[in-house]
């Protein structure tokens, strides 16, 4: 049977990790390629790079980083942030990424999902969703609204309806980020995760809120997620991926234990 995936997320700006990641022994790693290699050796099942570079040179820097990562690690990885056109997708995929993640660009131009899927296959297109909890209304019946610009702008789109629409348009996977849970380290938004994961037929990666191994267990058991995105829980050396996986394995969650 399929293993539940553990996916570290690395935020990159101008070709460097936004926060130097501190490990036991205080080794500060700022290079995304070295960091990717570290997580590859550690047993990560996949990696996500999120590029938050704002400069004009961003594309070239990102492509160069993707190429270097692809020469060094041999597990799937996806790249998100600033991908607006099919040509952007092509460059990132040719550089060696397995998948591209589109978020606000898909909301502005939903046709981009289908164009990407037609050109590269659904498996290469991840729909990134940033979601905020709101009072259920006629417009937002699920009580979860799509937001962009880091949660500052509400779009008027219902998250459940958008997830289904994204699947229909050809997305192969959903990366579901709860803005409410993100950064709290108090656990994933389980209700949201379960709502989306049980209403689409494509895999859902839960994102935002992981601060303890228990959170990862519950997002698989109760949230029905197919994969869990993690960041600070491993970035700062609190846990290793092996520790997380051993904990899950002992509790009958199927994870990849040999690498």
């Amino acid at each position: 049977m399929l293993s539940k995936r553990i996916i570290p997320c690395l935020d990159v700006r101008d070709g460097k990790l936004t926060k130097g990641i501190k490990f036991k022994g205080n080794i500060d790693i700022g290079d995304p390629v070295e960091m990717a290699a570290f997580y590859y050796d550690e047993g990560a099942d996949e990696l996500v790079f999120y590029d938050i570079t704002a400069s004009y040179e961003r594309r070239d820097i990102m492509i160069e980083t993707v190429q270097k990562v692809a020469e060094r690690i041999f597990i799937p990885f996806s790249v998100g942030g600033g991908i607006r056109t099919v040509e952007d997708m092509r460059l990132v995929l040719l550089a060696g990424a397995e998948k591209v993640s589109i978020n606000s660009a898909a909301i502005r131009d939903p046709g981009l999902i289908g164009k990407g899927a037609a050109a590269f296959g659904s498996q290469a297109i991840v729909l990134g969703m940033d979601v905020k909890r709101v009072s259920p209304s006629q417009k937002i019946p699920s009580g979860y609204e799509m937001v962009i610009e880091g949660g500052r702008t509400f779009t008027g789109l219902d998250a459940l309806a958008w997830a289904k629409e994204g699947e229909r348009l050809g997305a192969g996977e959903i990366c579901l980020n709860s803005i409410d849970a993100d950064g709290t380290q108090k656990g994933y938004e389980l209700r949201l995760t379960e709502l989306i994961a049980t209403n689409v037929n494509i895999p859902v990666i839960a994102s935002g809120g992981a601060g303890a191994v228990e959170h990862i267990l519950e997002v698989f058991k109760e949230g029905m997620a197919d994969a869990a995105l993690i960041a600070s829980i491993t970035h700062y050396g609190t846990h290793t991926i092996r520790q997380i996986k051993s904990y899950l394995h002992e509790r009958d969650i199927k994870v990849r234990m040999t690498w």
Partner: protein
Amino acid sequence: MIAIIDYKAGNLTSVQRALAFLGYDSVITANASEVLAADRVIFPGVGAAGTAMFDLMRLKLDTALLEAYGRGKPILGICLGTQIVMERSEENQTRCIGIVKGEVLRFPEKLSESGGGRLKVPHMGWNRVEITRDHPVFDGIDPQSEFYFVHSYYPAPRESRNLLGQTLYGVPFASVLASANLVAVQFHPEKSGRPGLRLLSNFCVWGGKDHA
């Protein structure tokens, strides 16, 4: 030289990058004579069977592949490449190359695990492969290893001698095929970490003999 067959069906650079990491030169080619000049051939691909067969036939790569097989060159099929070596595919009702007898089937619509949980199609992620007999291409690979899959269709070989590995996803299916100098895997060894790299490096030194 290793030829990676290019028929515009997918991410071939990742296979080449993995070979380069292992120290092997390779050429990505759509040229039938270049395929026949190579010592060994990798036949990868993602996408749909119908389009893939159309492009292979247009480029005369279907006959080149059959001839390379007939000459005993070691051949490795990957993902869609593995489905294309079968006789026909349910996907677009496609007649395929037919090195291995049998069909390519789609995972059933309502697929569930033994506990009753719903399974999504495509089968995407890491899964085990139960190797049914010794084979040089799987030499030294831990039986607990998992490999990275992305597919909605799977090969169903008619003869059990062609079944080298089996994977469970709602139904058991053939994830590895073997036929003389051909080995074909439904997963992506180039994206499967160390076990995948080990498989590729085993293939790169394999003489093309199956001792079954």
